[in-house]
């Protein structure tokens, strides 16, 4: 009989062979059947977030087909799709999207540029902070939309006013998050820079700016959303083109299918620009463990 032998050392360090080792008090474990209850969430599926929207569209489609949803209140999804094709054929949809996108791009550009410049001035110098931070905090308390009447008086109802409103919606989150990140540099990294005798310029370039990049990108995510939001408002006031104008016009003629197309376009533009920023984030911040995986 082949009895398993356990070699054990007693207190004096002498190895003794023991037959019949005591039954081990552990349960069988393998990769397939872990014996521990896992309490955290499993890793999410890449496109799992689409489930909710898809279910809503399904419900909407079935409801329209069966007749639960009155087509005067909400047209069926396929009506919205065919309306979208009609609008494209007439050239109205792409034309209005182009106008809206151009306004959003200009607003985004100026909002990001000014937000970063203000954040750098007020984040990196004390005087800049004294001068600018209070002003921005006060501006933040006043909704951009409440300023529109004043902007109309100052800049008229043309493109300038629209771009300014969009830019302000971008400026605030960019400034807040970038400034916060610049001022929140880890004191340990400051000490390291001092102990290595870095010059001020080297400190800014190697420590402060890369350290503030995650904050800036977070601000950018809020900023691109803010650009589209600002657009919705200005295009429904005094506009003669753009997605918002298309929606306003459709409201006048009670064309709920066109309103629907406009809303879907806004949603697609907003979500895809957010995805674009997140993609940028994962490329630029590859040094971060959370995003690298």
């Amino acid at each position, binding site marked *: 009989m082949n009895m398993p032998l356990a070699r054990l050392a007693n207190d004096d360090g002498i190895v003794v062979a023991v037959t019949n080792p005591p039954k081990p008090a552990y349960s069988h474990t393998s990769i397939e059947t872990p014996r521990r209850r896992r309490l955290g969430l499993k890793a999410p599926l890449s496109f799992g977030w689409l489930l909710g929207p898809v279910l809503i569209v399904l419900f909407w489609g079935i409801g329209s087909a069966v007749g639960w949803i009155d087509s005067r209140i909400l047209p069926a999804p396929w009506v919205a799709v065919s309306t979208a094709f009609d609008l494209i054929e007439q050239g109205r949809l792409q034309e209005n999207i182009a106008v809206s996108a151009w306004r959003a791009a200009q607003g985004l550009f100026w909002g990001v540029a000014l937000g970063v410049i203000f954040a750098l001035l007020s984040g990196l110098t004390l005087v800049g902070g004294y001068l600018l931070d209070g002003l921005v905090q006060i501006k933040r308390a006043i909704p951009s939309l409440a300023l529109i009447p004043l902007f109309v008086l100052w800049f008229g109802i043309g493109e300038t006013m629209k771009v300014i409103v969009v830019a302000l919606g971008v400026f605030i989150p960019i400034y807040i998050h970038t400034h916060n990140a610049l001022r929140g540099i880890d004191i340990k990294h400051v000490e390291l820079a001092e102990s290595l005798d*870095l010059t001020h310029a080297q400190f800014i370039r*190697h420590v402060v700016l890369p350290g503030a990049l995650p904050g800036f990108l977070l601000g950018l995510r809020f900023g691109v959303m803010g650009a589209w939001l600002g657009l919705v408002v200005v295009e429904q006031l005094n506009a003669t083109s753009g997605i918002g104008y298309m929606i306003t016009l459709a409201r006048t003629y009670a064309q709920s299918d066109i309103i629907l197309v406009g809303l879907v376009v806004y949603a697609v533009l907003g979500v895809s620009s957010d995805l674009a920023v997140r993609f940028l984030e994962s490329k630029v911040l590859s040094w*971060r463990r959370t995003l690298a995986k």
Partner: protein
Amino acid sequence: MASYTREVRTESGSVETVVSIRNLVRRFTLKGVLNGIDLTITKGEFVALLGRSGSGKSTLLRAIADLDREARGSGEILAPKDLLVAFQDARLLPWKRVLDNVILGLDAPDAKARGSRALAEVEMSGREQSWPYELSGGEQQRVALARCLVREPELLLADEPFGALDALTRIRMHSLLRTLAEVHRPAVLLVTHDVEEAIALADRIVMLDDGRIVADIAVTPYRATVAGHEELKLNLLALLGVEANAPPTGQSVSVS
């Protein structure tokens, strides 16, 4: 408020003294106070600064490195300009690859080559393009050592650099630091609360208690024999207030 002067010695090589501290008093620091420290470190000397937590050892190191901006006190510190600090956490910039961390702020045209050489010396060749998060704690600390090495400092201040490492890694790091110190001959001030570490590495052990130097011991005579090593260890433990007869907790009592 008492006056407090700090001089930076610029000429190097000609004077044997690297650090000279006279009657240093420090108050209102977070980690401890200093109640009149006199200390001289000579060129190439490896000094371990031993003491309980709160005894003021980190405060003294940070005073020499001129890192505490809020500190108040009096006294005189003479320290070289090219001193470097190895921190307990490796303090690598997470957004820079290993080599760029090593040569951070170096303007020399051969910086990259020197950085690679320093990495080779700490046995981290081939990891130049790794991100810090990809390294283990011991590897990060090696890179931090390379970052000090590449600048050829006259004085290396090490603030419990191995405190966060596991016991086996710490032993490997000890022999590495010892070798590097013998090759490059900087003066080293190593802050530690580990008696074994102090004996294994230092030429001289300075014991700090309540902000005062309570012992200043040359290690070399003791290190020669196992009995001497053991005697020094028990003496130091007694000075630290650990009962010499009972096996001290947290200290490895291995006789090899």
